[in-house]
C-alpha cells in the first residue's frame, strides 16, 4: 500500500517562497613578499682617472624593500691603489644618491631605508705627483647590502 505523507513545517528559517537555494563562503587571500635587497653594477671593473681630485663615478642600482645596511670594505682596510711594486695612491671613496647626497663617505657601514634608486660610487685619487711611479694601480672594493 502506498501512503503519501505530507509534512507541514511552519517556520521562517527553512521556508522558501519561490526562490532557489544559495550558499556563500569567504576566502581569505594572503601573500608574502619576501624581503629584497639587491645591488647591481654595469661593470665590475672601473677605470679610474689617476689625476688628483678628479672623481670617477659609476652607477649602481640599489633595490631594497626593507631597511638595509650598506657596507664598503677593502681587503687591507685602506683606500689605496697599489701598483704591485710597493707604490700606492690614496683615494677617497663615497656612495651618493642621485641628488649627490652622501650615503657613505668612506669605508664602513650606513643604514638606509627602503629604496629603488640608482646611486653612484665615486673614486677620487690624491697625492699623485711627478715622482709617483708610472704604471697600473689597482684595488678591490667590496660593497655589500644586507637587510637589517
Amino acid at each position, binding site marked *: 500500500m502506498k501512503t503519501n505523507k505530507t509534512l507541514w513545517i511552519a517556520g521562517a528559517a527553512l521556508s522558501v517562497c519561490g526562490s532557489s*537555494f544559495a550558499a556563500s563562503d569567504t576566502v581569505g587571500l594572503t601573500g608574502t613578499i619576501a624581503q629584497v635587497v639587491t*645591488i647591481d653594477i654595469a661593470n665590475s671593473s672601473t677605470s679610474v*682617472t689617476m689625476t688628483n681630485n678628479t672623481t670617477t663615478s659609476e652607477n649602481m642600482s640599489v633595490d631594497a624593500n626593507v631597511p638595509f645596511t650598506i657596507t664598503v670594505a677593502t681587503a687591507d682596510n685602506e683606500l689605496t691603489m697599489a701598483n704591485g711594486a710597493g707604490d700606492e695612491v690614496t683615494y677617497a671613496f663615497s656612495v651618493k644618491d642621485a641628488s649627490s647626497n652622501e650615503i657613505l663617505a668612506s669605508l664602513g657601514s650606513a643604514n638606509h631605508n627602503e629604496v629603488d634608486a640608482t646611486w653612484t660610487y665615486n673614486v677620487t685619487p690624491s697625492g699623485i705627483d711627478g715622482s709617483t711611479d*708610472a704604471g697600473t694601480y689597482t684595488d*678591490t672594493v667590496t660593497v655589500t647590502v*644586507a637587510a637589517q
Partner: protein
Amino acid sequence: MCVAILAVLPRTYAASSETIILPRTYAASSETIILQLIGTISKSVSIVFDSSTIDLGDLTQHTAVDFTIVSNTEYIITTPTTGILTNEYGGTLGFTTATNNGKLTITPNTIGPDQPLGTYSANIEVTISAI
C-alpha cells in the same frame, strides 16, 4: 499562502578553502658586489733649472747650476758635452760641461792672450727622456 517543503538535500559543505598568492621569489636579502678599481699613471719626466741664467764670471773657472728632475720612471739625461760661447762681436770661446747629482757644471776653455774681449753667452739644452 506560503508552503514549505522539506527536501532531502545534500549537505552543502562550505567552501572554506584558501587561496594563497605565492610571493615572487627574489634574490636573497643580501648581496655583495666586487669593484675592481684600475688606474694608470703615465710616464712623465721634467727638468727645471734653478736659475735661467748662469753667470760664468770672468770665464776663468767652472761654474755650476742646480737643476731639478722630477720623474716617475727611469730616464736618460742628455747634455752636450761641449759648447761655444760667443761674444757680441762674434768672438768665440769653447766650454765643456758635466752633470752630476743634479748639477750642471760649465767649464770654459782656457783663455789665451788673444781672446777677444766682450760678453760671452750661449745656451745649453739639457734633455731627459723616459726610458
